[in-house]
């Protein structure tokens, strides 16, 4: 199921409850792997799946205060902007993800082959 908005496709990732509260989970859509985070106050964020430093799964990190701490070497990133906080690591690619009316996660991403 997809809708088109400004050259982007809406991809359904399934129920938001797949992501434990306060944590992240890694999703694969076609060739793309992303991390989706669901904060304790029910905000959703999405970034690239792997840490630019040494490739950890960012979804395995600790989330809090709008940031995620990478599990490998504790690099910290702002979930909204993807920018590194307190260090000069490359910023994360961030994606737009939201919750649909039926409680599913929806990713905004340019059209891809399915």
């Amino acid at each position, binding site marked *: *199921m997809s809708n088109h908005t400004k050259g982007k496709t809406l*991809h*359904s*990732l*399934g129920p938001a409850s*797949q*992501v*434990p*509260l*306060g*944590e992240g*989970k*890694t*999703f*694969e*859509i076609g060739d793309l*792997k992303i991390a989706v985070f669901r*904060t*304790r106050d029910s905000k959703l964020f999405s970034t690239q*799946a792997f840490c630019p430093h*040494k*490739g*950890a*799964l960012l979804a*395995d*990190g*600790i*989330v*809090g*205060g709008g*940031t*995620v*701490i990478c*599990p*490998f*070497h*504790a690099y*910290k990133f702002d979930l909204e902007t993807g920018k590194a906080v*307190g*260090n000069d690591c490359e910023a994360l690619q961030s994606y737009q993800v939201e919750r649909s009316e039926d409680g599913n996660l929806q990713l905004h991403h340019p059209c891809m082959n*399915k």
Partner: protein
Amino acid sequence: MSSKQQLVVIGNGMAGARFVEDLLARGGGDKYQIVMFGDEPYGNYNRILLSGVLSGTHDPKEIFLNPLSWYSENGIRLHSDARVTAIDRARCQVLAGDGLSVPYDRLVIATGSRPFVPPMDGLKLDSGQFKEGVFLFRTLQDCDGIIKFAGRCRKAAVIGGGLLGLEAARGLLNLGVETHVVHLMSHLMEVQLDGPAGGVLKGTLEHLGVHVHLEKATTAILGANEVSGLQFKDGTKLDCDMVVISAGIRANCELARDVGMKVERGIVVDDGLNCPDDPKIFAVGECAQHRGQVYGLVAPLWEQTAVLADRLSGRNSQATYCGSKVSTKLKVMGVELAVMGDKHPREPGDEEVSYVERSRGIYKKLVIRNGQLAGAILLGDSLRAASLHQYFDQGSELPENRAELLFPMSGEAKPLTMAYVPDSAQVCNCNGVSKGRLVEAVQSGCRSLKSLCDATRAGTGCGSCKPQVQAILEMASDGLMVDDPAAHYYVPGIPLTKPALIQAIRTQELRSVSAVFEALVEGREQAGSKAGLASLLKTIWGRDYEDERDARFINDRVHANVQKDRTFSVVPRIYGGVTSAAELRRIADVADKYSVPMVKITGGQRIDLLGISKENLPRVWQDLGMPSGHAYTKAFRTCKTCVGTEFCRYGVGDSTSLGIKIERRFQGIESPHKMKLATAGCPRNCSEATTKDLGAVAVEGGRWEIYVGGAAGSRVRKGDILCVVDTHEEVLKFMGRFMQFYRENGKYLERTYDFVERIGIERLRRLLVDDAEGVSSRLDEEIQAAVDAYRDPWEEALQPVHPTQFSDVLVPSKT
């Protein structure tokens, strides 16, 4: 329009600017519109480093604590290079040159001091300017002038043999000038040093090439338009072509005196730094006189600014300043000096202990009163300075053998002499930070351990380099480091020390990490604090802890150790390092079934299966049928053993059974950091039990020595003996008691080796073995409760806490 009050600060020096910094850190920027007046046309710089600028070790650009951009970034209106001419108390406004008038709701005077110029002839030209070649030594501009003039000068005289004069002399020496120090008194630095110490210092200075002239009062500066020499009261003369006057400072109190405020040697203030005659006016720093004292060292000034900031920000309106204990650690002419308290015995019964080695420039003296340290001078060797400061600050009882205070005892940890380590040496191995990088960061403004670690990432990995980082901070900041209160917080996101935090958690019955954030910091969740809070809450509440898995590090979410390729390492528990053929077969079968890339024997005497995917973890655990070895978390890890009386011909104790009992009892008990144990069957100690967090060594007579606080990893330390007992049961009892005490009192991520050194083995013995404070039975109950509450985390193979707990990558189904 804001309803902010207007705060005016007269003075942009080390007290004034620091006060504004402290105020901003306490949210004062929301309450006040801040206006500052400064005499010098720059931001605030570290005046103490001027001697470094003079001697060439510091670039003038490097010494700014608050560059001009800091003021604009923080919304502070700075009138630099503008002298305040008067305070109008009736209209509550401050008047400056060019007809400027600025109203105030609160006024802080931080005008500091000016150099004292002793009366003498020939100082100035008719125009009123100083004769050419005459300099003061207070400002950047002074430094600049001295450096430029030194280029064409042969011989310089410094009038004033106090701390500042000697620093000026060092600078001149480095500029290649023949340097003479001229001093009124009979020995140098008479404020800090006694006569003999002054004599030793004179010897050291002469050895460095400085000429010292004592008991000389300068009556005139000779030379028509340029300096040609000094004339002394006793009729003698000294040829020179440059004079630097550094004969003391006088507080700048005119503004206060002119409007009728009480002024003695400084502007008189009370314990709230408030001027008694005017509730709106305050004074801090060198210009203030508190309980009869005027301070000229930076630490007391910064204590004053913190109190004033607490009061004016409303953060703590009851904060009081009660005066400062004057204890300082300095480098004078590159020579280490630590001074505190009284330099002479004052009362009958005062004891004096001293040690002098003139040829090496060493002088150490203690003044002891009623068994406490009342004063000390350490010149030329300040290795014991840190512990003497502690005795002095805390008034603790001194060891009977006074020599212990003056010299490091053999067997003690070698003090960290970071000064001799080359800049290229790597201090933080986890993050590859060199000493040079750390020094650079300190010199560019990082004055607390936290800011230094944040800026360089040093100490943010395993953390074992922190003592060395601290030592470099002390060395590179010339003692001007800041004790960040956040250094004492249990976790950075909650401004409370561990005891205060535990108190709040218990009284408010906060059982989860999110409850703690909600109740104590208005819901401001901080990612870096979650794991530490989870550890603490589990220790406090045991079974009643509300375990929010998002507060766990990944290892503790999936109960395995994450590896660099995102696979995991699985280490099943092998009690005491003793296994069986059946167990080995099960492990081998699992290795085959899952094509495990590496099977490795660990240092903890068990077997590691490396390269297992997250998704396979539950199935691997089920196929192994063995409980978790907890090789991935901050808890009891292992109890290694050597064979002992079961087989070994040297064994005097059954170390294998004991090790297995220990491991069965304490497996998985959470602690501030990992605990690695071992038991040894005889003093040959083949299992290295003396370098473990807890160890038990069998000795002749079938007894067991219990060691605590040992280490053999990034730090190597021999454990201290807690006690010697007769039975396995007693070993379990005392080990459990120590573990519980560590769980309750250790800082998060503090290994037992740091913990034991911090508390002290004497105190631990008194508390845990002698039961001097009656805490033993409670500790025994608590550790028993923790043991009873233990569940094998690998049971989650059958009952995951969340459907996707072990999912690596989710692939949404196509629709």
